[in-house]
Protein backbone atom coordinates (compact mmCIF):
# COMPACT_ATOMS: atom_id res chain seq x y z
CA UNK A 1 0.00 0.00 0.00
CA UNK A 2 1.34 3.43 -0.96
CA UNK A 3 1.89 5.71 2.04
CA UNK A 4 0.40 9.20 2.07
CA UNK A 5 2.64 12.22 1.45
CA UNK A 6 2.22 13.40 5.04
CA UNK A 7 3.19 9.94 6.31
CA UNK A 8 6.30 9.90 4.13
CA UNK A 9 7.38 13.38 5.22
CA UNK A 10 6.81 12.48 8.88
CA UNK A 11 8.95 9.34 8.64
CA UNK A 12 11.59 11.21 6.64
CA UNK A 13 12.17 13.51 9.61
CA UNK A 14 11.53 10.81 12.25
CA UNK A 15 14.10 8.42 10.78
CA UNK A 16 16.49 11.28 10.21
CA UNK A 17 16.41 12.43 13.82
CA UNK A 18 16.59 8.85 15.15
CA UNK A 19 19.72 8.03 13.20
CA UNK A 20 21.59 11.16 14.22
CA UNK A 21 25.00 10.87 15.85
CA UNK A 22 26.67 14.21 16.52
CA UNK A 23 23.38 15.88 15.53
CA UNK A 24 21.73 14.84 18.81
CA UNK A 25 24.27 16.81 20.82
CA UNK A 26 23.80 19.76 18.50
CA UNK A 27 20.03 19.67 18.92
CA UNK A 28 20.47 19.78 22.70
CA UNK A 29 22.67 22.86 22.28
CA UNK A 30 20.17 24.47 19.90
CA UNK A 31 17.24 23.88 22.27
CA UNK A 32 19.12 25.18 25.32
CA UNK A 33 20.23 28.20 23.33
CA UNK A 34 16.72 28.95 22.05
CA UNK A 35 15.31 28.57 25.57
CA UNK A 36 17.86 31.01 26.99
CA UNK A 37 17.28 33.47 24.16
CA UNK A 38 13.53 33.47 23.80
CA UNK A 39 12.38 32.56 27.30
CA UNK A 40 14.97 34.09 29.62
CA UNK A 41 16.57 36.94 27.67
CA UNK A 42 13.58 38.13 25.66
CA UNK A 43 11.06 37.90 28.48
CA UNK A 44 13.14 39.23 31.35
CA UNK A 45 15.87 41.39 29.85
CA UNK A 46 14.80 42.61 26.42
CA UNK A 47 11.36 44.15 26.34
CA UNK A 48 10.52 46.23 23.29
CA UNK A 49 10.59 49.62 25.04
CA UNK A 50 8.21 51.42 22.70
CA UNK A 51 5.73 48.54 22.52
CA UNK A 52 5.79 48.12 26.29
CA UNK A 53 5.37 51.80 27.17
CA UNK A 54 2.94 52.95 24.51
CA UNK A 55 -0.24 51.48 23.09
CA UNK A 56 -0.42 53.10 19.66
CA UNK A 57 1.91 54.13 16.85
CA UNK A 58 0.83 57.73 17.36
CA UNK A 59 2.01 57.67 20.98
CA UNK A 60 5.27 56.00 19.96
CA UNK A 61 5.78 58.56 17.20
CA UNK A 62 5.10 61.45 19.60
CA UNK A 63 7.58 60.07 22.10
CA UNK A 64 10.36 59.67 19.51
CA UNK A 65 9.45 63.04 18.00
CA UNK A 66 10.06 64.57 21.42
CA UNK A 67 13.35 62.73 21.74
CA UNK A 68 14.54 63.89 18.33
CA UNK A 69 13.43 67.47 18.54
CA UNK A 70 13.93 68.59 22.14
CA UNK A 71 17.18 70.28 23.18
Amino acid at each position, binding site marked *: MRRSLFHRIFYFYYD*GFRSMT*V*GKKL*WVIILIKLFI*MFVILKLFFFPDILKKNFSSDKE*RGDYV*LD*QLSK*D
Partner: protein
Amino acid sequence: MFENFDLSLVNWSRGQFALTAIYHWIFVPLTLGITFILAIMETIYVRTGNEEWKKITKFWLTVFGINFAIGVATGIILEFEFGTNWSNYSWFVGDIFGAPLAIEGIMAFFLESTFIAVMFFGWNKVSKKFHLVSTWLVAFGANLSALWILVANAWMQSPVGMQFNPDLARNEMVNFWDVFLSPVAVNKFIHTITSGFVLASLFVIGVSAWFILKKRELVLAKKSILVASIFGLLSGLMLVYSGDGSVRLIARIQPVKFAALEGLYKGREGAGLIALGIMTSGKEDSTGRKVYPVPLKLEIPNLLSYMAAGSWNAFIPGINDLIDGNPEKELLSVREKIKRGQYARETLARMKESRDRGDSLTYRQLKDKFYDADFKENYFSYFGYGFLNDPNSLIPNVPLTFYSFHLMVVLGFYFLLLFIVFLLLVWKDKLDNKKLLLWLAVFTIPLAYVASEAGWIVAEVGRQPWVVQDLLPTVAAVSHINASSVQITFLLFAAIFTGLLIAEISIMIKQIRIGPKEGGK
Protein backbone atom coordinates in the same frame (compact mmCIF):
# COMPACT_ATOMS: atom_id res chain seq x y z
CA MET B 1 23.15 68.03 23.02
CA PHE B 2 25.70 65.47 24.22
CA GLU B 3 25.17 66.51 27.81
CA ASN B 4 21.55 65.31 27.67
CA PHE B 5 22.67 61.74 27.12
CA ASP B 6 24.19 59.30 29.50
CA LEU B 7 27.46 58.53 27.75
CA SER B 8 27.98 55.48 29.92
CA LEU B 9 24.67 54.12 28.58
CA VAL B 10 25.71 54.93 24.99
CA ASN B 11 29.07 53.26 25.39
CA TRP B 12 27.70 50.14 27.08
CA SER B 13 24.99 49.85 24.44
CA ARG B 14 27.58 50.21 21.69
CA GLY B 15 29.84 47.73 23.43
CA GLN B 16 27.04 45.22 23.79
CA PHE B 17 26.03 45.54 20.15
CA ALA B 18 29.66 45.21 19.05
CA LEU B 19 30.13 42.13 21.23
CA THR B 20 27.05 40.34 19.89
CA ALA B 21 27.73 41.35 16.29
CA ILE B 22 31.35 40.19 16.47
CA TYR B 23 30.38 36.85 18.02
CA HIS B 24 27.52 36.41 15.55
CA TRP B 25 29.91 37.04 12.68
CA ILE B 26 32.18 34.23 13.88
CA PHE B 27 29.48 31.74 12.82
CA VAL B 28 28.11 33.39 9.67
CA PRO B 29 30.91 33.54 7.08
CA LEU B 30 31.76 29.85 7.27
CA THR B 31 28.12 29.00 6.55
CA LEU B 32 28.02 31.43 3.60
CA GLY B 33 31.05 29.86 1.97
CA ILE B 34 31.06 26.22 2.93
CA THR B 35 27.54 25.67 1.57
CA PHE B 36 28.79 26.56 -1.91
CA ILE B 37 31.89 24.40 -1.46
CA LEU B 38 29.58 21.52 -0.47
CA ALA B 39 27.39 22.15 -3.50
CA ILE B 40 30.43 22.07 -5.81
CA MET B 41 31.73 18.85 -4.23
CA GLU B 42 28.34 17.16 -4.46
CA THR B 43 27.96 18.29 -8.07
CA ILE B 44 31.25 16.54 -8.87
CA TYR B 45 29.94 13.43 -7.07
CA VAL B 46 26.67 13.41 -9.03
CA ARG B 47 28.43 14.04 -12.34
CA THR B 48 31.22 11.49 -11.85
CA GLY B 49 29.48 8.92 -9.63
CA ASN B 50 32.76 8.68 -7.67
CA GLU B 51 31.87 7.58 -4.10
CA GLU B 52 34.98 9.32 -2.76
CA TRP B 53 33.35 12.68 -3.53
CA LYS B 54 30.24 11.59 -1.62
CA LYS B 55 32.40 10.79 1.39
CA ILE B 56 34.14 14.16 1.09
CA THR B 57 30.82 15.98 0.79
CA LYS B 58 29.41 14.21 3.84
CA PHE B 59 32.45 15.06 5.93
CA TRP B 60 32.25 18.79 5.17
CA LEU B 61 28.48 18.58 5.61
CA THR B 62 29.08 17.56 9.22
CA VAL B 63 31.42 20.49 9.72
CA PHE B 64 28.80 22.80 8.21
CA GLY B 65 26.10 21.26 10.44
CA ILE B 66 28.09 21.97 13.61
CA ASN B 67 28.72 25.57 12.62
CA PHE B 68 25.11 26.09 11.53
CA ALA B 69 23.64 24.55 14.68
CA ILE B 70 25.80 26.55 17.07
CA GLY B 71 25.43 29.79 15.15
CA VAL B 72 21.76 29.65 14.21
CA ALA B 73 19.63 32.38 15.77
CA THR B 74 22.59 34.20 17.35
CA GLY B 75 21.63 37.14 15.13
CA ILE B 76 18.20 37.30 16.76
CA ILE B 77 19.85 38.87 19.80
CA LEU B 78 20.77 41.87 17.69
CA GLU B 79 17.08 42.36 16.97
CA PHE B 80 16.30 42.14 20.70
CA GLU B 81 18.84 44.91 21.27
CA PHE B 82 17.24 47.11 18.62
CA GLY B 83 13.95 47.06 20.52
CA THR B 84 15.41 47.53 23.99
CA ASN B 85 18.63 49.51 23.72
CA TRP B 86 18.07 51.31 20.44
CA SER B 87 14.36 52.11 20.42
CA ASN B 88 14.77 55.63 18.98
CA TYR B 89 16.80 54.18 16.17
CA SER B 90 14.37 51.30 15.56
CA TRP B 91 11.52 53.74 15.27
CA PHE B 92 13.44 56.25 13.14
CA VAL B 93 14.46 53.65 10.50
CA GLY B 94 10.83 52.56 10.23
CA ASP B 95 9.90 50.09 7.53
CA ILE B 96 13.25 50.46 5.78
CA PHE B 97 14.61 47.91 8.21
CA GLY B 98 11.36 46.04 8.73
CA ALA B 99 10.77 45.15 5.09
CA PRO B 100 14.14 43.55 4.31
CA LEU B 101 14.16 41.66 7.61
CA ALA B 102 10.62 40.38 7.05
CA ILE B 103 11.53 39.20 3.56
CA GLU B 104 14.57 37.47 5.03
CA GLY B 105 12.43 35.65 7.57
CA ILE B 106 9.85 34.48 5.09
CA MET B 107 11.94 33.72 2.04
CA ALA B 108 15.49 32.84 2.86
CA PHE B 109 15.06 31.29 6.29
CA PHE B 110 12.34 28.86 5.19
CA LEU B 111 14.17 28.00 1.98
CA GLU B 112 17.30 27.36 3.98
CA SER B 113 15.77 25.40 6.84
CA THR B 114 13.50 23.22 4.68
CA PHE B 115 16.24 22.01 2.40
CA ILE B 116 18.81 21.58 5.16
CA ALA B 117 16.73 18.62 6.37
CA VAL B 118 16.99 17.07 2.90
CA MET B 119 20.75 17.68 2.93
CA PHE B 120 21.24 15.84 6.20
CA PHE B 121 18.49 13.21 6.16
CA GLY B 122 17.99 12.74 2.42
CA TRP B 123 21.01 10.58 1.47
CA ASN B 124 19.63 7.41 -0.16
CA LYS B 125 16.06 8.60 0.52
CA VAL B 126 15.65 11.13 -2.25
CA SER B 127 17.19 10.99 -5.71
CA LYS B 128 20.77 12.17 -6.18
CA LYS B 129 19.61 15.08 -8.28
CA PHE B 130 16.98 16.21 -5.78
CA HIS B 131 19.57 16.05 -3.01
CA LEU B 132 21.97 18.09 -5.10
CA VAL B 133 19.31 20.70 -5.84
CA SER B 134 18.61 20.92 -2.10
CA THR B 135 22.28 21.52 -1.37
CA TRP B 136 22.45 24.33 -3.93
CA LEU B 137 19.23 25.83 -2.55
CA VAL B 138 20.67 25.84 0.98
CA ALA B 139 23.75 27.64 -0.36
CA PHE B 140 21.65 30.25 -2.13
CA GLY B 141 19.24 30.48 0.83
CA ALA B 142 22.03 31.11 3.33
CA ASN B 143 23.44 33.85 1.14
CA LEU B 144 19.99 35.33 0.51
CA SER B 145 19.60 35.59 4.29
CA ALA B 146 22.73 37.71 4.33
CA LEU B 147 21.46 39.78 1.41
CA TRP B 148 18.53 41.29 3.30
CA ILE B 149 20.55 42.10 6.41
CA LEU B 150 23.20 43.71 4.26
CA VAL B 151 20.62 45.78 2.36
CA ALA B 152 19.42 47.11 5.72
CA ASN B 153 22.99 47.83 6.82
CA ALA B 154 23.79 49.51 3.50
CA TRP B 155 20.84 51.84 4.01
CA MET B 156 22.34 52.92 7.32
CA GLN B 157 25.61 53.71 5.56
CA SER B 158 23.88 55.49 2.70
CA PRO B 159 20.19 56.26 3.33
CA VAL B 160 18.27 56.38 0.02
CA GLY B 161 14.80 55.60 -1.31
CA MET B 162 12.93 56.98 1.70
CA GLN B 163 10.87 59.95 2.86
CA PHE B 164 10.96 61.18 6.45
CA ASN B 165 7.45 61.37 7.90
CA PRO B 166 7.63 64.25 10.43
CA ASP B 167 4.31 63.34 12.06
CA LEU B 168 5.57 59.91 13.06
CA ALA B 169 9.29 60.77 13.26
CA ARG B 170 10.16 57.83 11.06
CA ASN B 171 11.40 57.10 7.60
CA GLU B 172 9.11 55.46 5.08
CA MET B 173 10.26 53.58 2.04
CA VAL B 174 9.18 55.27 -1.19
CA ASN B 175 11.22 53.18 -3.61
CA PHE B 176 12.10 49.59 -2.75
CA TRP B 177 14.48 49.30 -5.72
CA ASP B 178 16.46 52.38 -4.69
CA VAL B 179 17.01 50.73 -1.31
CA PHE B 180 17.60 47.22 -2.67
CA LEU B 181 19.84 48.19 -5.58
CA SER B 182 21.71 51.10 -4.04
CA PRO B 183 25.38 50.91 -5.08
CA VAL B 184 26.37 50.52 -1.43
CA ALA B 185 23.96 47.57 -0.97
CA VAL B 186 25.10 45.77 -4.12
CA ASN B 187 28.75 46.29 -3.34
CA LYS B 188 28.39 45.42 0.33
CA PHE B 189 26.58 42.19 -0.50
CA ILE B 190 29.22 41.05 -2.99
CA HIS B 191 32.09 42.05 -0.73
CA THR B 192 30.62 40.40 2.35
CA ILE B 193 29.60 37.08 0.82
CA THR B 194 32.88 36.74 -1.07
CA SER B 195 34.71 37.37 2.22
CA GLY B 196 32.71 34.43 3.59
CA PHE B 197 33.69 32.33 0.57
CA VAL B 198 37.35 33.13 1.15
CA LEU B 199 37.10 32.33 4.86
CA ALA B 200 35.39 29.00 4.18
CA SER B 201 37.99 28.12 1.54
CA LEU B 202 40.80 28.85 3.99
CA PHE B 203 39.00 26.77 6.62
CA VAL B 204 38.74 23.79 4.25
CA ILE B 205 42.38 24.17 3.17
CA GLY B 206 43.56 24.52 6.78
CA VAL B 207 41.71 21.41 8.00
CA SER B 208 42.83 19.45 4.94
CA ALA B 209 46.42 20.56 5.55
CA TRP B 210 46.15 19.16 9.07
CA PHE B 211 45.03 15.79 7.64
CA ILE B 212 48.06 15.76 5.32
CA LEU B 213 50.37 16.62 8.22
CA LYS B 214 48.88 13.68 10.13
CA LYS B 215 49.16 11.52 6.99
CA ARG B 216 45.44 10.77 7.16
CA GLU B 217 42.61 11.06 4.64
CA LEU B 218 45.03 12.09 1.92
CA VAL B 219 42.57 11.73 -0.94
CA LEU B 220 39.91 13.71 0.90
CA ALA B 221 42.42 16.37 1.88
CA LYS B 222 43.91 16.88 -1.58
CA LYS B 223 40.58 16.88 -3.40
CA SER B 224 39.21 19.32 -0.83
CA ILE B 225 42.22 21.61 -1.25
CA LEU B 226 41.76 21.51 -5.02
CA VAL B 227 38.13 22.62 -4.80
CA ALA B 228 38.73 25.15 -2.01
CA SER B 229 41.79 26.76 -3.59
CA ILE B 230 40.01 27.31 -6.93
CA PHE B 231 36.85 28.55 -5.21
CA GLY B 232 38.90 30.67 -2.82
CA LEU B 233 41.01 32.17 -5.59
CA LEU B 234 38.00 33.16 -7.71
CA SER B 235 36.18 34.51 -4.63
CA GLY B 236 39.33 36.34 -3.53
CA LEU B 237 39.61 38.10 -6.88
CA MET B 238 35.97 39.13 -6.62
CA LEU B 239 36.64 40.25 -3.05
CA VAL B 240 39.45 42.53 -4.20
CA TYR B 241 37.31 43.90 -7.05
CA SER B 242 34.36 44.64 -4.74
CA GLY B 243 36.75 46.03 -2.11
CA ASP B 244 38.00 48.51 -4.70
CA GLY B 245 34.37 49.44 -5.41
CA SER B 246 33.77 49.87 -1.68
CA VAL B 247 36.68 52.27 -1.36
CA ARG B 248 35.33 54.47 -4.18
CA LEU B 249 31.90 54.53 -2.57
CA ILE B 250 33.26 55.32 0.88
CA ALA B 251 35.31 58.19 -0.58
CA ARG B 252 32.11 59.69 -1.99
CA ILE B 253 29.55 58.84 0.71
CA GLN B 254 31.58 58.64 3.92
CA PRO B 255 34.62 60.85 3.27
CA VAL B 256 35.60 61.12 6.95
CA LYS B 257 35.74 57.32 7.19
CA PHE B 258 37.82 57.27 4.00
CA ALA B 259 40.30 59.80 5.40
CA ALA B 260 40.48 57.82 8.66
CA LEU B 261 41.26 54.59 6.75
CA GLU B 262 44.47 56.22 5.54
CA GLY B 263 45.12 58.49 8.53
CA LEU B 264 44.90 61.44 6.14
CA TYR B 265 44.47 64.72 8.03
CA LYS B 266 45.55 67.27 5.45
CA GLY B 267 43.94 66.84 2.05
CA ARG B 268 46.11 66.92 -1.03
CA GLU B 269 46.20 66.37 -4.75
CA GLY B 270 47.87 63.20 -5.94
CA ALA B 271 47.49 61.52 -2.53
CA GLY B 272 49.48 58.35 -2.00
CA LEU B 273 48.15 55.09 -0.62
CA ILE B 274 49.71 53.86 2.60
CA ALA B 275 50.25 50.16 1.98
CA LEU B 276 51.77 49.62 5.42
CA GLY B 277 52.29 52.06 8.23
CA ILE B 278 52.66 52.61 11.94
CA MET B 279 50.75 55.37 13.69
CA THR B 280 52.24 57.20 16.61
CA SER B 281 50.14 58.02 19.65
CA GLY B 282 47.78 60.94 19.24
CA LYS B 283 48.75 64.55 19.94
CA GLU B 284 46.26 67.36 20.34
CA ASP B 285 46.51 70.20 17.87
CA SER B 286 45.57 73.83 18.59
CA THR B 287 41.84 73.09 18.13
CA GLY B 288 41.90 70.21 20.62
CA ARG B 289 41.76 67.66 17.83
CA LYS B 290 43.72 64.48 18.41
CA VAL B 291 45.99 63.82 15.46
CA TYR B 292 47.71 60.48 14.78
CA PRO B 293 50.68 60.90 12.44
CA VAL B 294 52.03 57.98 10.40
CA PRO B 295 55.78 58.62 10.36
CA LEU B 296 56.77 55.08 9.38
CA LYS B 297 55.04 54.05 6.21
CA LEU B 298 55.29 52.37 2.85
CA GLU B 299 53.41 54.68 0.52
CA ILE B 300 52.50 54.19 -3.13
CA PRO B 301 52.44 57.66 -4.72
CA ASN B 302 49.15 58.97 -6.19
CA LEU B 303 47.36 55.64 -5.79
CA LEU B 304 44.83 56.89 -3.21
CA SER B 305 43.71 59.65 -5.60
CA TYR B 306 43.33 57.12 -8.38
CA MET B 307 41.45 54.61 -6.22
CA ALA B 308 39.03 57.20 -4.88
CA ALA B 309 38.43 59.39 -7.91
CA GLY B 310 39.87 57.58 -10.93
CA SER B 311 42.45 60.32 -11.49
CA TRP B 312 46.10 60.21 -10.38
CA ASN B 313 46.09 63.86 -9.34
CA ALA B 314 42.59 64.20 -7.86
CA PHE B 315 42.23 66.11 -4.59
CA ILE B 316 41.47 63.87 -1.62
CA PRO B 317 40.14 65.76 1.38
CA GLY B 318 41.70 65.00 4.73
CA ILE B 319 40.00 64.96 8.11
CA ASN B 320 40.92 68.64 8.68
CA ASP B 321 39.30 69.69 5.38
CA LEU B 322 36.16 67.74 6.17
CA ILE B 323 35.81 69.05 9.72
CA ASP B 324 36.95 72.66 9.28
CA GLY B 325 35.66 73.01 5.72
CA ASN B 326 37.55 73.95 2.59
CA PRO B 327 35.85 76.70 0.56
CA GLU B 328 38.29 76.28 -2.33
CA LYS B 329 37.14 72.69 -2.72
CA GLU B 330 33.53 73.55 -1.86
CA LEU B 331 33.56 71.52 1.34
CA LEU B 332 31.18 72.69 4.05
CA SER B 333 32.55 72.88 7.58
CA VAL B 334 30.99 70.70 10.26
CA ARG B 335 29.99 73.90 12.13
CA GLU B 336 27.90 74.91 9.12
CA LYS B 337 26.40 71.42 8.93
CA ILE B 338 25.57 71.57 12.65
CA LYS B 339 23.73 74.86 12.08
CA ARG B 340 21.73 73.35 9.24
CA GLY B 341 20.97 70.25 11.28
CA GLN B 342 19.84 72.38 14.21
CA TYR B 343 17.52 74.30 11.90
CA ALA B 344 16.00 71.03 10.67
CA ARG B 345 15.49 69.87 14.26
CA GLU B 346 14.00 73.21 15.29
CA THR B 347 11.62 72.99 12.35
CA LEU B 348 10.54 69.57 13.57
CA ALA B 349 10.07 70.86 17.13
CA ARG B 350 8.06 73.87 15.91
CA MET B 351 5.91 71.65 13.73
CA LYS B 352 5.08 69.45 16.73
CA GLU B 353 4.32 72.47 18.94
CA SER B 354 2.00 73.99 16.35
CA ARG B 355 0.26 70.64 15.90
CA ASP B 356 -0.16 70.24 19.67
CA ARG B 357 -1.65 73.69 20.12
CA GLY B 358 -3.97 73.25 17.12
CA ASP B 359 -2.36 75.87 14.84
CA SER B 360 -3.10 73.91 11.70
CA LEU B 361 -1.81 76.52 9.24
CA THR B 362 1.68 76.75 10.78
CA TYR B 363 1.71 73.00 11.30
CA ARG B 364 0.91 72.39 7.63
CA GLN B 365 3.56 74.86 6.45
CA LEU B 366 6.27 73.37 8.63
CA LYS B 367 5.31 69.82 7.81
CA ASP B 368 5.46 70.57 4.07
CA LYS B 369 9.09 71.60 4.46
CA PHE B 370 10.05 67.99 5.07
CA TYR B 371 8.66 67.15 1.63
CA ASP B 372 10.32 70.10 -0.10
CA ALA B 373 13.33 69.14 -2.24
CA ASP B 374 15.35 72.23 -1.33
CA PHE B 375 14.80 71.79 2.43
CA LYS B 376 15.62 68.09 2.18
CA GLU B 377 18.87 68.74 0.34
CA ASN B 378 20.09 71.73 2.32
CA TYR B 379 18.76 71.06 5.82
CA PHE B 380 17.22 67.66 6.46
CA SER B 381 20.20 65.87 4.92
CA TYR B 382 22.21 67.32 7.87
CA PHE B 383 19.53 66.47 10.46
CA GLY B 384 21.87 64.33 12.56
CA TYR B 385 24.48 67.09 12.85
CA GLY B 386 21.91 69.06 14.83
CA PHE B 387 22.49 66.71 17.78
CA LEU B 388 26.19 67.48 17.97
CA ASN B 389 28.11 70.38 19.46
CA ASP B 390 31.76 69.55 18.98
CA PRO B 391 32.94 69.25 15.35
CA ASN B 392 35.68 66.87 16.49
CA SER B 393 33.00 64.38 17.57
CA LEU B 394 32.62 63.68 13.83
CA ILE B 395 36.00 61.96 13.77
CA PRO B 396 35.87 58.20 14.33
CA ASN B 397 38.53 56.23 16.18
CA VAL B 398 41.30 56.80 13.64
CA PRO B 399 43.91 54.25 14.86
CA LEU B 400 41.33 51.44 15.12
CA THR B 401 39.93 52.22 11.66
CA PHE B 402 43.40 52.61 10.13
CA TYR B 403 44.85 49.39 11.54
CA SER B 404 41.70 47.32 10.92
CA PHE B 405 41.64 48.46 7.29
CA HIS B 406 45.30 47.73 6.66
CA LEU B 407 45.17 44.41 8.47
CA MET B 408 42.18 43.36 6.36
CA VAL B 409 43.83 44.40 3.08
CA VAL B 410 47.23 42.85 3.84
CA LEU B 411 45.64 39.58 4.96
CA GLY B 412 43.36 39.59 1.90
CA PHE B 413 46.34 39.67 -0.46
CA TYR B 414 48.15 37.04 1.64
CA PHE B 415 45.11 34.77 1.29
CA LEU B 416 45.16 35.20 -2.49
CA LEU B 417 48.81 34.22 -2.58
CA LEU B 418 48.11 31.20 -0.38
CA PHE B 419 45.33 30.01 -2.72
CA ILE B 420 47.66 30.26 -5.73
CA VAL B 421 50.46 28.37 -3.97
CA PHE B 422 48.15 25.59 -2.74
CA LEU B 423 46.46 25.28 -6.12
CA LEU B 424 49.81 24.86 -7.89
CA LEU B 425 51.16 22.40 -5.34
CA VAL B 426 48.06 20.24 -5.15
CA TRP B 427 47.80 20.28 -8.94
CA LYS B 428 51.38 18.96 -9.17
CA ASP B 429 50.81 16.66 -6.16
CA LYS B 430 53.74 18.17 -4.27
CA LEU B 431 52.05 19.06 -0.99
CA ASP B 432 52.94 16.06 1.19
CA ASN B 433 56.39 17.19 2.27
CA LYS B 434 55.71 20.90 2.58
CA LYS B 435 55.30 20.80 6.36
CA LEU B 436 55.92 24.47 6.99
CA LEU B 437 53.40 25.49 4.36
CA LEU B 438 50.84 23.00 5.68
CA TRP B 439 51.20 24.38 9.21
CA LEU B 440 50.92 27.87 7.77
CA ALA B 441 47.57 26.89 6.25
CA VAL B 442 46.38 25.51 9.62
CA PHE B 443 47.31 28.76 11.39
CA THR B 444 45.73 30.83 8.65
CA ILE B 445 42.27 29.69 9.77
CA PRO B 446 42.14 32.14 12.72
CA LEU B 447 43.68 34.84 10.52
CA ALA B 448 40.72 34.47 8.14
CA TYR B 449 38.39 35.26 11.04
CA VAL B 450 40.56 38.19 12.11
CA ALA B 451 40.41 39.68 8.59
CA SER B 452 36.66 39.14 8.40
CA GLU B 453 35.99 40.84 11.74
CA ALA B 454 38.41 43.63 10.86
CA GLY B 455 36.29 44.35 7.79
CA TRP B 456 33.24 44.93 9.97
CA ILE B 457 35.24 47.10 12.36
CA VAL B 458 36.25 49.26 9.40
CA ALA B 459 32.62 49.49 8.26
CA GLU B 460 31.08 50.20 11.64
CA VAL B 461 33.72 51.96 13.75
CA GLY B 462 34.78 54.00 10.73
CA ARG B 463 31.32 55.51 10.34
CA GLN B 464 30.96 56.71 13.91
CA PRO B 465 29.32 58.84 15.24
CA TRP B 466 26.51 57.78 12.93
CA VAL B 467 24.02 54.94 13.15
CA VAL B 468 22.27 56.37 10.10
CA GLN B 469 24.75 58.38 8.07
CA ASP B 470 24.27 62.14 8.60
CA LEU B 471 20.73 61.65 9.93
CA LEU B 472 20.98 59.97 13.31
CA PRO B 473 24.03 59.91 15.59
CA THR B 474 24.58 57.08 18.04
CA VAL B 475 23.92 59.33 21.04
CA ALA B 476 20.39 60.08 19.79
CA ALA B 477 19.61 56.49 18.84
CA VAL B 478 19.76 54.90 22.29
CA SER B 479 16.80 54.21 24.56
CA HIS B 480 16.65 55.97 27.89
CA ILE B 481 17.17 52.94 30.10
CA ASN B 482 19.52 52.21 32.97
CA ALA B 483 23.13 51.69 31.96
CA SER B 484 23.36 49.01 34.68
CA SER B 485 20.78 46.81 32.90
CA VAL B 486 22.86 47.02 29.71
CA GLN B 487 25.96 46.09 31.72
CA ILE B 488 24.19 42.99 33.12
CA THR B 489 23.08 41.80 29.68
CA PHE B 490 26.52 42.59 28.27
CA LEU B 491 28.04 40.17 30.75
CA LEU B 492 25.30 37.61 30.11
CA PHE B 493 25.96 37.73 26.39
CA ALA B 494 29.69 37.52 26.90
CA ALA B 495 29.13 34.34 28.93
CA ILE B 496 26.60 32.76 26.54
CA PHE B 497 28.52 33.49 23.37
CA THR B 498 31.82 32.39 24.87
CA GLY B 499 30.11 29.15 25.90
CA LEU B 500 28.78 28.68 22.38
CA LEU B 501 32.17 29.40 20.87
CA ILE B 502 33.87 26.89 23.17
CA ALA B 503 31.16 24.32 22.27
CA GLU B 504 31.67 25.01 18.56
CA ILE B 505 35.43 24.71 18.68
CA SER B 506 35.45 21.59 20.85
CA ILE B 507 32.76 19.73 18.88
CA MET B 508 34.35 20.79 15.61
CA ILE B 509 37.82 19.66 16.63
CA LYS B 510 36.44 16.34 17.89
CA GLN B 511 34.60 15.70 14.62
CA ILE B 512 37.58 16.68 12.51
CA ARG B 513 39.77 14.32 14.54
CA ILE B 514 37.24 11.51 13.97
CA GLY B 515 37.42 12.31 10.28
CA PRO B 516 35.04 11.35 7.48
CA LYS B 517 34.13 7.90 8.77
CA GLU B 518 31.07 9.12 10.65
CA GLY B 519 30.22 12.06 8.47
CA GLY B 520 26.76 13.17 7.49
CA LYS B 521 24.54 13.40 10.55
